[in-house]
């Protein structure tokens, strides 16, 4: 190592240490840094879940025979449904839906058991009535219920099953996520969102703060290379973001029971590329803003909303109008979301994600170039 690089190394080390002091001595930034990911994971994991769990269901059992009771038992035994209402007549149905006491009602007609087991009957009927005011969840819960009924039918004593006409039976399989859990969808989403927010906000603020407090003046009137100011700012946040990533992964594996199917090392490597892209974005913001408030606003408004909208974990991009689809290609989180899903959920390797990784790396290079060109070696 030459003398010059040695000096550089010592200077960088001092600068990075200083940066860590700033973070760890400021409760607000600490809270933001580590509170945000935990809060997001818990929020999405438990409160904002679109998973079906303990959906209230009403039952209007007009048969009251052993088969119908077994079916109801089956429905209740599943973790998805909770029989909350037993109807005595059809008029109650309206009131139950209006009062929101149940999301759907299963109607078992008289003679259900008879129709089910006897060869001469044309087959048993069931009716499901769902509250369609929330079509998405109505659709999901009815298909769950249909699956349970299908299961029930298959599980009947073979002697009881009447071999009927060769009917078409569609068998549905949800690959990678058979239980349709929410976690595999939102954990990658939260990861891309949290890492982006932390990296962009913290880096942009930390550089602008030096401008605002006037310390940038002293840093500029020193032998320290201005470009190194930028790099030394990025290093601590790269490390902190990797810690954050680990935290998110631990939470999702142990708390949300979401396994990581792919290579953990690959996940961290690609995440590092994404983090660097986000840090470069933060650096760019810091070169064009003059106050911490402006930097904060741009990071929050300019980053959070597009990321939520265009990443694909809240709203499917395929359904958007073309101009919005084109815009979504500019959002780094979109690519990272695809990558994380591929590695964590599908267990795929680098062959499946190299394109997205290259796009992220390219973005990082471009952003770094612009911020480098933009960085002012003077005060104006």
């Amino acid at each position, binding site marked *: 190592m030459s003398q010059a690089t040695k000096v550089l190394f010592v*200077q960088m080390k001092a*600068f990075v240490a200083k940066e860590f*002091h700033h973070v760890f001595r400021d409760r607000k930034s600490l809270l933001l840094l580590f509170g945000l990911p935990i809060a997001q994971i818990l929020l999405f994991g438990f409160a904002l879940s679109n998973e079906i769990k303990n959906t209230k269901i009403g039952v209007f059992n007009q048969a009251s025979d052993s088969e119908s009771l077994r079916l109801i038992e089956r429905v209740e035994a599943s973790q998805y449904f909770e029989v909350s209402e037993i109807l005595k007549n059809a008029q109650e149905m309206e009131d139950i839906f209006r009062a929101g006491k149940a999301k759907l009602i299963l109607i078992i007609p008289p003679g259900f058991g008879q129709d089910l087991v006897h060869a001469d009957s044309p087959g048993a009927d069931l009716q499901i009535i769902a509250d369609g005011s929330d079509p998405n969840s109505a659709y999901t819960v009815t298909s769950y219920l249909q699956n349970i009924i299908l299961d029930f039918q298959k599980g009947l004593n073979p002697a009881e099953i009447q071999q009927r006409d060769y009917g078409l039976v569609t068998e549905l399989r949800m690959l990678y996520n058979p239980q349709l859990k929410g976690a595999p969808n939102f954990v990658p989403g939260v990861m891309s969102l949290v890492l982006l927010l932390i990296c962009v906000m913290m880096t942009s603020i930390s550089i602008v703060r030096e401008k605002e407090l006037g310390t940038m*003046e002293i840093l500029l*009137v020193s*032998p320290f290379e201005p470009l190194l100011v930028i790099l030394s700012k990025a290093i601590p946040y790269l490390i902190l973001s990797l810690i954050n990533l680990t935290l998110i992964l631990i939470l999702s594996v142990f708390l949300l029971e979401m396994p990581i199917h792919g290579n953990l090392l690959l996940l961290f490597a690609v995440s590092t590329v994404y983090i660097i892209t986000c840090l470069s974005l933060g650096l760019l913001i810091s070169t064009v803003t003059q106050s911490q408030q402006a930097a904060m606003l741009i990071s929050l408004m300019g980053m959070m909303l597009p990321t939520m909208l265009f990443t694909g974990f809240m709203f499917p991009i395929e359904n958007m109008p073309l101009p919005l689809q084109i815009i979504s290609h500019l959002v780094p989180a979109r690519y990272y979301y695809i990558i994380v899903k591929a590695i964590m959920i599908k267990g795929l390797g680098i062959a499946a994600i190299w394109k997205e990784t290259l796009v992220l790396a390219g973005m990082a290079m471009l952003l770094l170039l612009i911020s480098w060109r933009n960085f002012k070696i003077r005060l104006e």
Partner: protein
Amino acid sequence: MGHSAKGILCEGLSKSFHRGAVTAVESINLKIDQGELFGLIGPDGAGKTTLMRLLTTLLKADRGNATVDGLDITEDYKMIRQTVGYMPGRFSLYQDLTVAENLNFFATLFNTTVSSNIDLIHDIYVQIEPFSDRRAGQLSGGMKQKLALCCALIHKPTVLFLDEPTTGVDVVSRKEFWGMLAGLRTLGITILVSTPYMDEAMRCDRIALIQAGEIMQVNTPQGIIESYPLTLYAVKAEDTFRLLQDSKAYHNTRSCFAFGSYLHLTFRGEDPNLVREYMEYLYRKGHDSLTINKIAPTIEDCFMYLMNSKPMTSTRL
């Protein structure tokens, strides 16, 4: 630029902001010798900070050029940044770092250590040493200035730029601070210090009076006082405010300013009868316990005189 001269040399240095709409400094000519303690005296907004920032390479001049220790402020800005010490007007150290951490950080930044430069800052450092574990943000104003001075001196600069170092600092600390500057001057460091406090001007070797971006006069403090061309009187009466109003209205008053409980007053012309006529005027106005004395002007009187007379575009080097 072939200036091998040490010290600071400005030639026609101009700078404006907002695309020329606001002129910050205009055609500054200045020559500061090596080892000189030079004061830049002027009110807020006079252009002191802009001049400091131009010389510390933080701003780029629109016109003119300048050298610091023979180095051009535009072409050799990197070398200037390695050799000068700069203390910005606002307290610009890291408030959340301790005194020791700040010192060590800036020492490392300048590729040196605190211990190898302790001889230069020793006298100042011993005063802040008891607080070395305290965060800089929790220091008193005077202590902050001492720490900032230590940080600016940590790499043995040849030229020291101090932008309003005593603003917002108590009187005792201000006195101490100027004592330290006098000590540094004996070590041969060129010091350019700006201040809005006219009384501090007397502690400089030479001063430049700056107003509205232009230097009005450059001289030793004594020289500036001696060049004051008028006879100055200090007037006192029981009701200072009414005295000021009446004196301003008096037809022979050339200038009149309140200085504490006194009025500093000059007449149009040097006729000795003017004083008597003026006093009679005041008695007629019903003023009590009147006193009037001929006094030597202060730097502030000189400043006021220069500011109100025709702006001098040619400055003496």
